[in-house]
Every structure is written in C-alpha cells, then in structure tokens.
C-alpha cells in the first residue's frame, strides 16, 4: 500500500512556526519514522528522539539522511520510560498520536 503523508509539509511548517529550533538541543517524544525529525534536525544542534514502536525506530535509523547522522539519535521508549539528564535539553517536542 502506498500513501504519502503531508506532501505539502504542513506539519513541519507549523512546528517550525511554533518555535525557533535553531541551535537547540531537542528532545523529541513520539518521533515515529522520523518524518518530522529530519526537518527539525536540520536546524537543531542535536535531536534525541524516542518512540515506543521498535519498527518505527528501525525505519527512522535506516532512513536517516547521512548529513544528519551525527546529530540525531533514535531510541525505543515510551514517554514514561524515557530517562534524560536534568536540564540537558533546550526544547521538548511532543508529537503524540500522529
């Protein structure tokens, strides 16, 4: 089955209007297959991205653009399992239920 999600980029455009991601250390909760992660990571200093679905995380890791690999890390965890050091990020990005 072929589907194209948000080819117009409305999700990413709205997220980038909502806040300035430039140079920020970002914690993303609910990264799915990384569809929005790439766009955020192009601006951010780093992105630590979590999703509870291991298949999604595998896809995201496999499809991560080469030029972003040094600043994006994907991990499998649900929101209540995430462990991150105190005051270690500048921006938390929740992308629930997408």
């Amino acid at each position, binding site marked *: *089955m*072929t*589907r*194209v*999600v*948000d*080819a*117009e980029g*409305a*999700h990413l455009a*709205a*997220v980038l*209007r*909502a*806040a*300035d991601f430039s140079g*920020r250390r970002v*914690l993303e*909760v609910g990264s799915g297959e990384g569809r*929005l992660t790439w766009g955020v990571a192009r601006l951010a200093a780093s992105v630590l991205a979590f999703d509870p679905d291991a298949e999604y995380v595998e896809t995201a890791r496999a499809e991560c653009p080469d030029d972003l690999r040094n600043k994006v890390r994907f991990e499998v965890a649900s*929101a*209540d399992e*995430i462990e*991150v*050091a*105190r*005051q*270690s*990020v*500048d*921006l*938390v*990005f*929740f*992308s*629930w*239920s*997408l």
Partner: protein
Amino acid sequence: MEPEGVVDVLRKLLQALVPDGVVVDLTAVPPNAQVEVDGRVLGELDGSAFFPRAEEATAGLDALAREGLLLLEGEERFSILVRYPTGRDAAEDVAQRTYTRMPAPLARRVEAIAGPVAIREFSLVRSFRMRG
C-alpha cells in the same frame, strides 16, 4: 494512562529542560478526519475512540500551565492531507489503525474509487515556555 499519570510523566520529562526552555506540542484534534476526492468531502472517519487518547496529553500540559510551570506562548490549528493512489488503499490503511475507523457505508464507497483519494486530518500545535 490516568490523567494524573500523564501529568507525572510530563513533569518528569520537563525536568530535562533548561530554565526558560521551550515545549512544542503537536497533536491530532477534532473534527473527525475527512475523506476527500478531488477536493470534495465524501464523508468522515470515526475518531471517537482516538481523540480522548490524544486529548490526555493536551490536558496534561494544560494542567501544568494552570499550575504555573508552563506559559502558553502560541497555538495554531491547521490540517494536513494523507494521499492514496486509490480508494482501496485509503480504506485498507484506515482499517489497520487501532483507534480510528471508517464507517462501513463510507468504506464501501471509498473502496469503489479507482483514482486518488485523500484523508484530511486536523492538527493543533502549541508552544509553551518553561517558567524558570
């Protein structure tokens, strides 16, 4: 998860933020997603089991804002399109979703469409500032 549980999880995650850090929350919101063909609305999906789950996180952030931990700085509602080459593709994709369904009469109509079909989904993005 109970509402109190969501708030606890959010509170723990927000400990990762620096003082004056930013929270961006992107979530799906009502109304129900619409099935569209050539820009014409054919019908609605049933999201009655889905939206309460999405609203848990929204409510949790609202609770933290009421508590004074977060300050709402902006919000925007918008929609996105999920495009499929045929109606059958759209119906099959929705059938695999856990909390959203396509009502049977609509599914029969959509499955009969040989050409492109789109599903319009509605979203809300909000930004908050962590109070230092």
